[in-house]
């Protein structure tokens, strides 16, 4: 059995880390957009807005029911074929679109559950003092739903960071793509991919700390 080439591995770290910002940027953009879309979907579903509710259900079931990779290929290869104005949709854009839609479908469901989880009698109390639906959502329900939803949403964010690695199948040279290239040149596949794995693991660990800190802060809020 061959011994791992440690020098090569150490040398690879700075090379691969150069691509980390792109990975994080795609994840951050995807997360922000997915959160906005998920909130919209969740509110539509909670309020059972006519017509839009049907559309939201369809959207959610499609993006939860099909693999992310298939969705990415649809956006990257399929869309330009339908709409000629998109002839060259770039891989990064397609990845962000795919991540946004895919994860917003999951996040919409957990946000909806969190909204429904806020004690219904508080909604009635808010209405009874003359608040409008919008005021009651903004001031009473959403702040509490956030507290319920944050742990799950953070987990989706971690999943999303890992899922950005699929961008390399669309020709994007991000963390995974760069490792793939390096390995193809050196034939040291195991070394290259174990370094990628370690880098992903490191990010996830860092963010888990952030998650625990956030949850601690949020839990402290109402218990005094």
């Amino acid at each position: 059995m061959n011994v791992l080439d440690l020098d090569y591995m150490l040398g690879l770290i700075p090379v691969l880390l150069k691509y980390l910002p792109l990975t994080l940027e795609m994840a951050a953009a995807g997360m922000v957009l997915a959160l906005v879309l998920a909130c919209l979907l969740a509110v539509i579903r909670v309020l059972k807005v006519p017509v839009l509710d049907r559309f939201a259900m369809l959207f959610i079931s499609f993006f939860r029911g099909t693999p992310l990779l298939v969705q990415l290929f649809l956006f990257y290869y399929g869309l330009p074929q339908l709409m000629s104005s998109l002839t060259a949709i770039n891989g990064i854009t397609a990845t962000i679109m795919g991540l946004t839609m895919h994860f917003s479908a999951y996040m919409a469901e957990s946000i909806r559950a969190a909204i429904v989880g806020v004690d219904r009698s508080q909604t009635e109390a808010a209405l009874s003092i003359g608040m409008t639906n919008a005021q009651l959502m903004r001031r009473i329900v959403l702040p509490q739903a956030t507290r319920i939803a944050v742990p799950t949403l953070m987990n989706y964010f971690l999943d999303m960071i890992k899922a950005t690695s699929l961008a390399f199948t669309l020709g994007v040279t991000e963390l995974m793509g760069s490792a793939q290239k390096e390995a193809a040149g050196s034939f040291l596949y195991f070394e290259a991919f174990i370094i990628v794995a370690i880098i992903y693991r490191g990010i996830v660990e860092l963010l888990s700390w952030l998650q625990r800190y956030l949850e601690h802060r949020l839990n402290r809020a109402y218990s005094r």
Partner: protein
Amino acid sequence: MIQLKGLRKEYGKQTVLDGIDLDIAKGEIVVVIGPSGTGKSTLLRCINFLETPTAGEITVGDLTVDACSTSRKDILALRRRTAFVFQNYALFANKNALDNIAERLIVVDRWPKEKARQKAREILQRIGLADKAEAYPASLSGGQQQRVGIGRAMATGAEVILFDEPTSSLDPEWVEEVPGLMKQLAREHQTMLVVTHEMSFARDVADRVIFVDGGRIVEQGPPSELFSNPRDPRTRDFLRKVLPDQTA
């Protein structure tokens, strides 16, 4: 100043309120009693449209709302003239005691925050919880939570406060403080419509007691009369059960 005309509520085929007519004068304290499931909560909830009545007319002050033709604006206006105290307190869990009370003034009446909090502090003083301003509902006892619930209703300056069994979720040891506060409000001539199983409260505080059964007002009168000399057999039967010591 509060007037209900022919108020009806149906759930599907089930008639819960079968034409309620009721006038309440300014400053009057009206207690509603009756067996379980006869529509007492529904009556209160219809008055501020937490439930939409099927038919009838509701007047509070100078505002009259017809159940059959209401606009969103009417409903908001009606809710702003009434206040509700819930059986399970229903305090906003994400707000401390002070902000539970100030919320309406800040959001609905659009007072500046400081002025609203100042008013909320005065109310906390009146309900005897000045030292709990910063406390969140989760850290208050049931009795304290319900007093904040009443404080929240007081802050609305509503023409009438609707109480739905305000003491029935409380442990016996906390029960006294809530009727105590309600009696204080009564002395200040706050108009109140109270659903309760506390017959002693009805007897001591009410100007008028209404007995409801099957979605109708069966009998009403001053507590001294209704309790000692009920005319309808259903009233007599009900009172015999809830006032075992007072067999009529």
